[in-house]
């Protein structure tokens, strides 16, 4: 990678934040999605509605939460609702414009595994499980996914379909009666990917500064498709980078202080 003033992880978070609009109602997964959503809120989308599955609606945390139920989320929320209401009225009710997920394993069609490595009945590694993801993936109007690339994470075939993306591609969602769009954006530490309009296979549409086609392919378990007109992701602006680093610094101080 060429020398740069920002890390691939910072670029990933910032590229993900740019995809969010001021009008979005975003169901936020913990980790990378949470950072991206809050950077969006602190830069170009101050009125974005961030929802965490613990029940906090319209939250504006000063530091990133360690878990989906930190007190900071409730303290800064417009309102906090019971968990059944969150899943019934707000997610299943179709009010979430963007469900923002991370992934332990993902395939080229945006199907996600966070359940097991190996066989379900006798797993090699028992992962935490789906949590809110199976219904976030089917009930959100669109799904964004973000993760750092690795051959362990981006695989030809996932071990377990925790959350359904585009299945085997094409109109597989429609055939299952799922009428939401599913994964429409994948942001890694190297590139921005979008599904092919027909096959729904995730295709690289933009390389981050310093990233090459080879780097993308070397860290991905399937044969990568690249868009014909491949863009370069604009590097982080000074504001974006300062905002992200301030947030991380505040977060580190707060969590060490506890």
């Amino acid at each position, binding site marked *: 990678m060429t020398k740069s003033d920002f890390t691939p992880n910072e670029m990933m978070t910032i590229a993900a934040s740019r995809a969010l609009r001021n009008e979005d109602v975003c169901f936020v997964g913990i980790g990378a999605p949470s950072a991206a959503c809050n950077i969006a809120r602190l830069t170009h989308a101050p009125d974005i509605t961030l929802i965490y599955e613990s029940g906090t609606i319209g939250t504006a945390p000063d530091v990133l939460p360690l878990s*989906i139920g930190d007190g900071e989320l409730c303290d800064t929320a417009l309102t906090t609702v019971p968990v059944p209401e969150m899943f019934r009225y707000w997610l299943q009710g179709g009010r979430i414009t963007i469900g923002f997920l991370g992934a332990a394993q993902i395939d080229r069609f945006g199907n996600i595994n966070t359940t097991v490595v190996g066989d379900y009945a006798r797993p090699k590694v028992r992962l935490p499980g789906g949590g809110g993801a199976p219904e976030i993936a089917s009930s959100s109007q669109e799904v964004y996914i973000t993760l750092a690339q690795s051959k362990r994470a981006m695989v030809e075939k996932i071990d377990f379909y925790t959350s359904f993306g585009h299945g085997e591609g094409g109109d597989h969602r429609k055939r299952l009666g799922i009428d939401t769009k599913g994964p429409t954006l994948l942001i890694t530490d190297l590139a921005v990917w979008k599904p092919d309009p027909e096959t729904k296979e995730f295709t690289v549409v933009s390389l981050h500064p310093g990233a090459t086609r080879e780097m993308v392919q070397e860290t991905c378990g399937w044969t990568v498709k690249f868009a014909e007109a491949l863009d370069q992701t604009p590097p982080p602006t000074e504001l974006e980078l300062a905002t992200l680093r301030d947030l991380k610094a505040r977060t580190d101080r707060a969590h060490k202080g*506890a």
Partner: protein
Amino acid sequence: MARFVPLPQAVADNLKDGDSVAFEGFTHLIPTAAAHEAIRQGFRDLTLIRMTPDVVYDQMIGMGMARKLVFSYAGNPGVGLLRRLRDAVENDFPRPIEIEEHSHAAMANAYEAGAAGLPSAIFRGYRGAELAHVNPNIKFVRCPFTGEELAAVPALRPDVTFIHAQKADRKGNVLIEGIVGIQKEAVLAARRAVVTVEEVVEDFSGLHPNLTILPHWTVAAIAVVPGGAHPSYTHGYYARDNAEYLEWDRIAADRDLFGDWMERNVLRATPEDFARRVEKLRVAR
């Protein structure tokens, strides 16, 4: 009718070997003190139910108390995997554990149905999700008006639910603030409910009447245990002990280290130790 009793009695009176039991809390208000008391009393063959089993369930599973786990997300929040649970699932240590796994939406709906006295919950879920193939308690039904296929799961009806809350009043009514989670449903779905509270107040006057409140006749026993949610937090009382969650990852990774830690911090400890543990985490009120 709620009775105010010491925690050891509240646990002994309401939990027994073989019960299905939920110690519920959604990151906030996890009833750690009640779970530790159950560990000290050495119950066996429990079916542990919880949306988000975390450190206390890792501890109970590591101690071999659980026959089965019903859950939707088993992780150390903000840290990673549960290593005692992994050891049980992957290596049958210290005993095999049966898994009934759901999504959050399914568990939330199942508790809701339990609270509502229904036999099952019906919702739009599990579409394309492989859990529907490995969990026989996930079925599908058709809407009689539109023909749409909807997911169905059995209602959750624990024998006992334990929760932690901010306050009880002298009559035994219980008040919860902050992230309210699934606790009201978990209590109303259960045959018996036990609540640990930070404090008992004369009444709730001056507090908003539309807060989450459980009338005294929905609760079997209340035990006053200041700090009883540590290392989780109690909104308005003390903050989350993030360092403890990080430390757990190291402790749970090693069977011997785990055993030593449990001996020192749980088996030889008392409910009264919790107040000291949260001293440095107290928030201004």
